[in-house]
């Protein structure tokens, strides 16, 4: 690797110092974001296919063999659609909103460790970075709803704003319990602390937190059964009623990127990140040693992404007041009690908690 950089340096002498650092990070970032966009595109395809089969339909099957080219056709269609600027809207904020939605959705990926030593940035406070950047995404939705100057978007924005902030507290407290056990807010260290075997992953000592985190992740990403923000039967399309063409597509990308991110984060925090599930089991560990860590991470995340679709196809939509009740009166007391329990267990040195 070093030889390679020396070769580059000899080839282009001015390629050095700050410029080189920025270019290298940029290459890394693009190497991460491009596959991410591809995953988003094919996740929409998977969503339509999976829900189709769950409802005894076939799903998209016309464009390309078995509909494989459907996402590309969708992208092309959205690109050639007109972008409508509503006459009463606040144009600058109206156009700023999609950017504010997607910028955090992409920036948040910077700290995710995909494998041992495989990350773009190894921040010591990566979990706090995730929380901070994650909450910026709310602005995109609020701004979209307000700038449209229309009723349904405004209602959707209000709903989503109070929903997102309520569940952000719950996610915050759930993350505290993880941090308590791992003793670090660095995602790398959290994954390393789960090394050993499948029994060391945090989903066993923190099982209720895992459930709460996953449900809150569903709410944070506006997924069914908590999609009151854009509930079609209630407020038409929520915040993106007035958006069309690529402006809508940007919102869509942000939402799906966030969804995939939440699946990956759940794996990193509760399911051992890149560690193989067969660690510590005599023959299986040796038999699967050749599988790189990133494959395990992606496989586990894929399972969670499938779970999103499964849940969407299974449950009816919640009523808004029920969702708020769930957050404030069920999850919040639960998480506070669990912080107590984990603290007590650590001090008494009981069980798998310390």
């Amino acid at each position, binding site marked *: 690797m070093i030889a390679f950089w020396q070769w580059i340096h000899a080839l282009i002498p001015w390629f050095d110092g700050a410029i080189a650092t920025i270019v290298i*990070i*940029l290459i890394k*970032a693009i190497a991460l974001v491009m596959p991410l966009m591809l995953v988003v595109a094919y996740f929409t395809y998977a969503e339509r296919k999976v829900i189709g089969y769950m409802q005894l339909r076939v799903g998209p099957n016309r464009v390309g063999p078995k509909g494989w080219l459907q996402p590309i056709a969708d992208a092309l269609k959205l*690109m*050639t*659609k*007109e*972008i*409508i*600027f*509503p*006459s*009463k809207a606040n144009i600058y904020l109206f*156009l700023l909103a*999609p*950017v*504010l*939605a*997607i*910028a955090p*959705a*992409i*920036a948040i*990926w910077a700290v995710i460790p995909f494998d041992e030593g495989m990350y773009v940035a190894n921040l010591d406070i990566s979990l706090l970075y995730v929380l901070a950047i994650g909450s910026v995404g709310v602005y995109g939705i609020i701004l979209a709803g307000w700038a449209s*100057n*229309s*009723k349904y978007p*405004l209602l959707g924005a209000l709903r989503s*704003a*109070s929903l997102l*902030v*309520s569940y*952000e*507290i719950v996610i*915050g407290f759930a993350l*505290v*319990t993880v*941090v*308590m056990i791992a003793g670090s*807010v660095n995602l790398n260290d959290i994954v390393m602390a789960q090394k050993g075997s499948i029994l060391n992953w945090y989903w066993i000592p923190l099982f209720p937190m895992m459930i709460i985190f996953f449900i809150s992740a569903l709410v944070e990403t506006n997924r069914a059964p908590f999609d009151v923000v854009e509930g079609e039967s209630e407020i*038409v399309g929520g915040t993106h009623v*007035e958006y069309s*063409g*690529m*402006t809508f*597509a*940007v919102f869509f990308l942000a939402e799906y990127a966030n969804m995939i991110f939440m699946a990956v984060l759940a794996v990193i925090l509760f399911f051992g990140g890149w560690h193989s599930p067969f660690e510590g089991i005599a023959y299986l560990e040796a038999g699967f040693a050749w599988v790189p860590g990133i494959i395990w991470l992606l496989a586990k995340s894929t399972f969670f992404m499938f779970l999103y679709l499964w849940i969407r196809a299974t449950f009816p939509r919640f009523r808004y*007041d029920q969702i*708020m*009740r769930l957050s*404030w*009166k069920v999850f*919040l*007391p639960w998480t*506070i009690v669990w*912080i*107590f329990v984990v*603290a*007590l267990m*650590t001090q008494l040195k009981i069980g798998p908690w310390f």
Partner: protein
Amino acid sequence: MVFIFLGIAFGIGPMLIGYLLGPSKPDEEKNSQFECGFPAFDDSRMYFNVRYYLVAILFILFDLEVAFVFPWAVVQSQLGWFGFVAISIFLFLLVVGFIFEWKKGALEWE
């Protein structure tokens, strides 16, 4: 940093492409705000329920609490009983406030 700029570029780029590739035939009806097919009744800067505001304030409180708990959580296994008692007092005060707002009905949605 680079990532944030890349994210912004990813927001602006596609919209620009869409603007350049897509047709642009504005007309008054199409650009008016959407309200299920009829002209809008009144201004959309309307009144909304005060509960949304209440939730926002409660969020600020609780999010601050979370921010305070994080540093403790990192080192809690080394702090021993002193840390445990300290965080117990802290969380006790939080829970008292929480019970108060619950009893006051700030969490009810009808």
